[in-house]
């Protein structure tokens, strides 16, 4: 076919004589052939153009595809990258999570540790209070021993008298019974002293109950009374008409007043006028109690330090330096405050504020 295509163009436009040589039939056949050839040629041309079109289209498609592929590839790479990143992130997240869990564990441990320490601290605080109580008790012992010795001595004498009366064959029963009655009174007096000491010294759980400070102060004075009396210290108590009811621990609060009374006792030892004044008033929300003495007062600048543990102005061996710090702790635990003022030339005056018990509470006996 291709050979015909090459020959034809010159033939189509070629010289006519060839046709004429072979006659009109040949010529017409040739013409028809040429026409057919031309048709075919046109057809082929059209086909070729169409082909070219298609080719161009195809080429375009191919390019687009290539571009798309490339884009896709980029996307793929990007996705890969992202995936990689995300994997890394995931790893990192995992590590973070693990670290977090670790930290949480640590935190839990630390919390437990802190709680344990807090408990320990609370225990220590209680032990300190107990130690302070025992120290106070130790200081009280001399006075109390004297106090206890008296009823014991009297019991001996009364019972001895009863024995003598019986041995002398005194028929008067009344006399003997009288002596024994006196002895019984002295026994209950001694029992009272001892039971009070025991309650005070006992390491009791720190329970809270509504209690009247009037009673607390009376009990503290019953322990300290003999010592104050022998030292000729005048004690006045004026708490006003209203009942100073607070919610607290009777024994701890008693210790507060024993500590303050002990300090006051030592403060007035060398004073010409020996007086301790306990005064109080009930406010709308708080009870205010003041313990004032006529001693030498507190040197200026020491008003805050005297509440520090182991700080003492007493001679070595005389004071533990614990009394006021324990007092401070107890008052603090009861939601109250304690402070001291000591104007020059006057004695010290300790001021205690304690929240008043809610109005509907009923007092319980310590």
């Amino acid at each position, binding site marked *: 076919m291709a050979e015909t295509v090459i020959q034809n163009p010159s033939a189509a436009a070629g010289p006519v004589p060839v046709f004429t040589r072979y006659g009109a039939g040949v010529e017409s056949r040739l013409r028809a052939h040429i026409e057919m050839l031309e048709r075919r040629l046109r057809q082929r041309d059209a086909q070729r153009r169409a082909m070219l079109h298609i080719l161009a289209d195809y080429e375009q498609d191919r390019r687009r595809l290539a571009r798309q592929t490339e884009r896709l590839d980029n996307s793929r790479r990007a996705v890969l990258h992202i995936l990689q990143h995300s994997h890394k992130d995931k790893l990192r997240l995992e590590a973070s999570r693990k670290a977090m869990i670790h930290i949480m564990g640590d935190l839990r441990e630390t919390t437990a540790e802190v709680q344990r320490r807090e408990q320990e601290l609370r225990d220590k605080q209680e032990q300190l209070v107990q130690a302070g109580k025992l120290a106070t008790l130790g200081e009280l012992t001399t006075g109390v*021993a*004297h106090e206890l*010795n*008296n*009823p*014991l*001595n*009297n019991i*001996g*004498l*009364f019972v*001895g*008298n009863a024995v*003598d*009366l019986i041995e*002398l064959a005194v028929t008067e029963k009344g006399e003997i019974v009288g*002596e024994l009655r*006196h002895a019984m*009174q*002295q026994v209950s007096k001694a029992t009272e002293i001892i039971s009070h000491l025991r309650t005070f010294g006992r390491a009791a759980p720190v329970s809270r109950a509504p209690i009247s400070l009037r009673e607390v102060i009376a009990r503290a004075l019953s322990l300290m009374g003999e010592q104050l*009396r*022998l*030292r*000729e210290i005048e004690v006045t108590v004026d708490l006003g008409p209203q009942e100073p009811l607070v919610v607290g621990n009777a024994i701890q609060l008693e210790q507060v007043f024993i500590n303050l009374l002990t300090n006051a006792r030592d403060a007035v030892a060398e004073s010409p006028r020996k007086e301790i004044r306990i005064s109080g008033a009930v406010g709308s929300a708080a009870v205010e109690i003041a313990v004032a003495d006529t001693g030498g007062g507190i040197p200026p600048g020491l008003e805050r330090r005297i509440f520090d543990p182991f700080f003492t102005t007493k001679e070595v061996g005389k004071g533990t330096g614990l009394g006021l710090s324990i007092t401070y702790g107890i008052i603090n635990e009861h939601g109250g405050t304690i402070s001291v003022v000591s104007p020059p030339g006057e004695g010290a005056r300790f001021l205690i504020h304690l929240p008043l018990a809610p109005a509907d509470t009923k007092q319980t006996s310590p």
Partner: protein
Amino acid sequence: MTTTLGVLIVDDNPALLQALPRALRLRMGGVTVETADSAAAALERIVTQDYDAIVTDIKMPGMDGLALLAEIRARRPDTPTLIITGHGDNELVVHALRGGACDFIQKPIDRDYLVAALYRAIRAHVLNRRVKNRQLALECCAEELERIVQQLEREPRAVPGGAES
């Protein structure tokens, strides 16, 4: 010597002032026991009364037993004073004995011991008084003798003297 003994008990404890005099009356027949509840009250009493013995507690408010002892020694140096001390107050005991107490009684009081100590003190006091009385009597006799001697010296040696010359 008087027939009834007088004893003063000084203590600030009212129950003891009830029990102790009773014990002494039961144990020491015919003793008169008076009480004072403070050193000051005791000093008031010894102004008018000369007791055969004084028993005082050592720990008392105001003037204590040692101060009272010193006062008694100054005002009634002859009256024997016994001191009641707490158990184990050894330092106070020594102070009391140095201060002129004739004995000490430890609480809780042993009545036999107290009675014995009181009797001993009173006997010593009585003996002392007797010695003093004798001494006084002797001094009187001595003065009398002296006086007689002087009188004899002043008088002319009339009666017995003639034989010599």
